[in-house]
């Protein structure tokens, strides 16, 4: 490196100011001009987070939200060279720094995870699907699923409810399937029962519906007649939604 320590230090001080907004003194710099850098840089970060987490932004009190974004940008070195991936770093920072507890927002991790997942599934690189055929046996032929999906589990129904009070009241166990429609590119999401989440997980691994159903009693699911009918109805519905693509060929 050809940079002298003094120049290096000046660059660090300048960028440090952009990150924190805390007063610095730099040779030859007009303070009333400097403040525009902080404004422009911070607005960009703020806008990125507002756009990535619209539900969180709307339902978290403004004071808390502003403190979060400021804390994040000042203390976290943003690693992503693609700004659209920065919200993942924000979410990760929230988890690592225990914001759920510190800001008394128990549903925060779930909400940020859900909003980030929507964005990630929407933008992620194309994943080629396995070859499949349109005809097959629903019970005995392994199914081919749309690989562009994520299965998430939450303690709070952040995918169904937005108001914080409601979220807290409905604490429980929730599963959400997000997938990208191969035709429109839109992200669809669906609330799943624990059984359907288990089913989806097993189908991804190439297990047949019959083998998964055989496992049901071990999950304390007894009403097997209806279960088979309901499960097949769900899968056929998911075929129309472009999540089940077809049958392994």
């Amino acid at each position, binding site marked *: *490196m*050809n*940079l*002298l320590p*003094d*120049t*290096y230090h*000046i*660059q*660090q001080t*300048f*960028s*440090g100011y*952009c*990150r924190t907004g805390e007063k610095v003194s*730099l*040779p*030859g*710099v*007009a303070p009333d*001009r*400097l403040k*525009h*850098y902080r404004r*422009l*840089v911070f607005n*960009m*970060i703020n806008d990125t987070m507002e756009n990535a987490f619209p539900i969180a932004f709307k339902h978290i009190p403004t004071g808390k939200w502003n403190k979060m974004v400021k804390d994040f940008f000042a203390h*976290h*070195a*943003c*690693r*992503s*060279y*693609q*700004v*659209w991936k*920065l919200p993942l770093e924000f979410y990760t920072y929230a988890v690592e720094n225990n914001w759920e507890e510190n800001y008394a927002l128990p549903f925060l991790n779930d909400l940020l995870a859900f909003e980030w997942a929507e964005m990630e599934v*929407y*933008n*992620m*690189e*194309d*994943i080629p699907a396995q070859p499949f055929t349109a005809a097959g046996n629903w019970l005995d032929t392994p199914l081919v699923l749309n690989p*562009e999906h994520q299965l998430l589990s939450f303690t709070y129904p952040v995918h169904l409810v937005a108001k914080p009070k409601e979220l807290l009241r409905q604490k429980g166990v929730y599963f959400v399937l997000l997938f*990208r429609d191969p035709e*429109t*590119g*839109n992200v669809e999401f669906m609330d799943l029962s624990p059984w359907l989440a288990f089913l989806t997980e097993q189908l991804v691994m190439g297990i047949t519906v019959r083998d998964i159903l055989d496992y049901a009693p071990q999950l304390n699911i007894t009403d097997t007649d209806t279960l088979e009918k309901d499960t097949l109805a769900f899968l056929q519905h998911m075929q129309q939604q472009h999540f089940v693509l077809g049958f392994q060929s």
Partner: protein
Amino acid sequence: MVGLGFRREFAEEMISGEHIRPDFIEFAPENWMNIGGYWKKVLHRVVEKYPVLCHGLSLSIGSPEEPDKEFLQYVKTFLQEYNVQIYSEHLSYSKCDNAHMYDLLPIPFRMDAVKHIAGRIQQVQDFLQRPLVMEIVSYYTPVAAEMSEVDFINEVVKQSGCQLLLDVNNIYVNAFNHQYDAKAFIQQLPLDKVAYIHMAGHEQVAPDLIIDTHGEPIIDPVYDLFEWTIQHLRPVPVLLERDFNIPEMEALQGELTRLKTICHKQWKLKDELVA
């Protein structure tokens, strides 16, 4: 050739070409690398229709730390995949202490910074196997300068062998903000190294300060400076940047047409084809 910065807000209009018809498009590889789904399809449609130039955001040539090799590899692959003719970047830094800032921070105009940057430009050019075209950025305050801006730029070009992106609006903005003569400044640049021109609008936020927003139409004095400038240049591609406050396509086409008319008049040549 007069092109337009490609943006998602008017992607469909550009693909249809009904109300807006640039000669080429430009976009930041960072905004389009490693994405799939809907926008990847859009990208494929638009690159089928127009030649592509790329204007990077995250290289941060003025960073103290080493260039990000993984990032450069992605850029290299992307430029090859989309047959990109020019890869330009900014003579600034946007990353320090390994933290991205997503904005263009001014580099101290100092000789050690020149040496540092020249070395980095060469490193990147070697890696990408193509020349870098470096944009003179707008800035709102000098930082610990030990030499003039124009000397700084000349030294960087001389020591690195890079080419220049002359953003005429940036020069106008800088001349206004730092009270110097834009034409005198341009005359002192190594104009034979200019490979690309940017044009844009800006916003005056105080009696003595203009912010380079890309959110307004180009103003007449910037057109005048452009017309004067290109008389001193060989024909190069010219790009209109519009990033915010997007108007009707007819208005943008009007700006493209006006730029084109000036180019035809002054360069007395048919469009130089880059693609």
